[in-house]
């Protein structure tokens, strides 16, 4: 199959991850539809930001792409091969090109291995250690901003930011093409977050890396991502260039999400009006019918409860899943006014 047409490095098609919950002798099993039919293209050399609230399935999606979680259905094409259907042996060979950086720099490093061993292990595993592993490890450490002298130390001797650097060095050790970074800065202090984001951006340029950058931090995603995908209850609801998604969000959920981000500027904060969503994210075990956001959406009409909205290109390269907006009517307020009077009661800036 030739699915790496154009410059797509990764092409995800109808990916599903359903987890079984419950289901004993007397009860029937239920399924958490963590990822429920996602289509996504990741272009070579880009950073695709994946945002969403906790429980929306963004981490599961990231893991399923790398087969760290088994997909229930669907395809992940990488370099002409479908990762979702490779045998575990074949998949292991691919892992050299596909790496992951984890959220918790404390839990993702083996406490009994020295930093040198941690960074060197993937090289040894994949037989990339040509001669002097020690030397290669030390060079990598320097690349990510750690002193060469630290290679004999253990993870507990490092701060959170330094541990994240170790995790990045480990991922880079096999010279991958594609890295899934799952909340790589969430556990770090503000001043350290900037350091790690800058480091990842520099490495991307130097090594032509492609990132899937998963985060709930919308400010960070705006900064690092070229394109942004917004996820809600297992589905992608909007995708487009980072700048446009932030300045002209289409889908009501994206609008609310972006308006909820506090801006570090008291003058803006004093005047802006937030869209405050009511209620919590519904359970993914029994997601709402139709558009999954309709239970919290103040623009929802009767049809939103029945129809599952497809992801449609509303503006060039800007897709949204909402039956109320179209190429002709990208602004939902205009639609809301004549078709559903009284529903558009949320304030939008």
């Amino acid at each position, binding site marked *: 199959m030739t699915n790496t047409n154009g410059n797509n490095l990764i092409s995800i098609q109808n990916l599903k991850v359903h987890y079984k919950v419950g289901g004993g002798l007397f009860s029937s099993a239920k399924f958490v539809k963590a990822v429920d039919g996602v289509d996504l293209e990741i272009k070579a050399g880009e950073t695709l930001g994946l945002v969403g609230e906790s429980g929306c399935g963004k981490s599961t999606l990231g893991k399923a792409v790398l087969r760290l979680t088994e997909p229930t259905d669907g395809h992940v094409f990488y370099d002409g091969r479908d990762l979702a259907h490779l045998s575990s042996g074949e998949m292991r060979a691919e892992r050299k090109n596909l790496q992951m950086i984890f959220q918790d720099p404390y839990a993702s490093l083996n406490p009994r291995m020295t930093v040198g061993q941690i960074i060197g292990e993937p090289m040894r595993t994949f037989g990339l250690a040509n001669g002097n592993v020690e030397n290669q490890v030390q060079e990598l450490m320097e690349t990510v901003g750690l002193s060469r002298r630290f290679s004999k130390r253990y993870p507990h001797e490092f701060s959170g930011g330094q541990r994240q650097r170790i995790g990045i060095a480990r991922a880079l050790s096999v010279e991958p093409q594609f890295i899934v970074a799952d909340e790589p800065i969430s556990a770090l202090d503000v001043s350290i977050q*900037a350091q790690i984001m800058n480091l990842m951006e520099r490495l991307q340029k130097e090594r032509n890396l492609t990132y899937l950058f998963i985060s709930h931090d*919308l400010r960070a995603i*705006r900064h690092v991502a070229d394109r942004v995908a917004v996820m809600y209850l297992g589905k992608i609801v909007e995708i487009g260039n980072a700048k446009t998604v932030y300045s002209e969000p289409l889908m009501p959920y994206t609008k609310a999400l972006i308006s909820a981000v506090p*801006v570090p500027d008291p003058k803006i904060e004093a005047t802006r009006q937030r869209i405050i969503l009511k209620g919590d994210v519904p359970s993914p075990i029994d997601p709402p019918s139709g558009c999954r956001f309709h239970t919290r959406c103040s623009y929802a009409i009767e049809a939103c409860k029945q129809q599952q909205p497809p992801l449609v290109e509303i503006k060039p390269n800007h897709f949204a899943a909402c039956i109320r907006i179209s190429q002709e009517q990208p602004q939902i307020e205009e639609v809301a006014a004549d078709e559903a009077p009284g529903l558009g009661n949320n304030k939008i800036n």
Partner: protein
Amino acid sequence: MSEKNGTILSVKNLKTYFQTEDGVVKAVDGISFELEAGETLGIVGESGSGKSVTNLSILRLIPTPPGKIVAGEVRFDGKDILRQTAEEVRKIRGRRIAMIFQDPMTSLNPYLKISRQIGEITELHLGHTRQQSHKHAVKMLELVGIPDARSRADSYPHEFSGGMRQRVMIAMALACEPEVLIADEPTTALDVTIQAQILELIKDLRTRLGTSVILITHDLGVVAGMTDKIIVMYAGKVFEQAPTGELFATPANPYTKGLLKSVPDPAHEDGTPLYQIPGLPPDVAHLPPGCPFAPRCERAEKICQEQFPPFIQINENHGSLCHFAAEVYAESLAESEVTK
């Protein structure tokens, strides 16, 4: 009384030290601030800066040992909390000064119904009967926006979502209509849309009940929209103190400036790398002799490595702990003129 009219809480030269294997950690080392009635004060700092310890010290909640409040004064209602008896402090805690914490799950008792947890407080402090306290708990849950509060009052904490639990925590904290609410990272564990709900709720209740608030956070975005004045802490010290607008517009401390510049601003993204403060947060057990920020400061000079900086008052309400506070302030002022 030497307090200004309207000052509800005043902290003077507070020092809280911890005895550790590594030596004495001066978690809070000479903090002073005043909270005016009806005001919201933001305390900003990274982990280990002492912001939480400051507030635990106010209510004498520091575990002793290893911690100890070694000096200072916390004036509330004309009396020094640090010198009152345990019995007197108990009457203030939860009644007149209440706290909410970052993690609502670990701060709620999993075995008790929500209504009982709120009820216990009003029974203790307000002398409510069981019936009164239950009624009051329902009223409080309604106030913080729990839908169907009457039936939800008899639920257990695990039956609530994270945002709802934080609402319950706020209901508990406000049950006795305290004069001061201390909120320690109240939204850090929550999603942005839920964070917006909770911040909006705190804002609304603050105006309705006239509560003074101390808001502790690492998120400069949160304090920008919520506070009247801000304290920036670093290594157990107040590095800068100023009215919110002034702190963001014209910071007088290199650390504050660095922090402000290192936060991505979605409104002004131009593809350039973020400003980054170099180096690592300080090891509070082994601070350098001079300014604790000097090893990471781009404008540090010889004097910064050698001498501890003075707290320089830029104007009546704006002070900065820096040898070059006046110069940094002048630079910020010039920069803000340019952007205007």
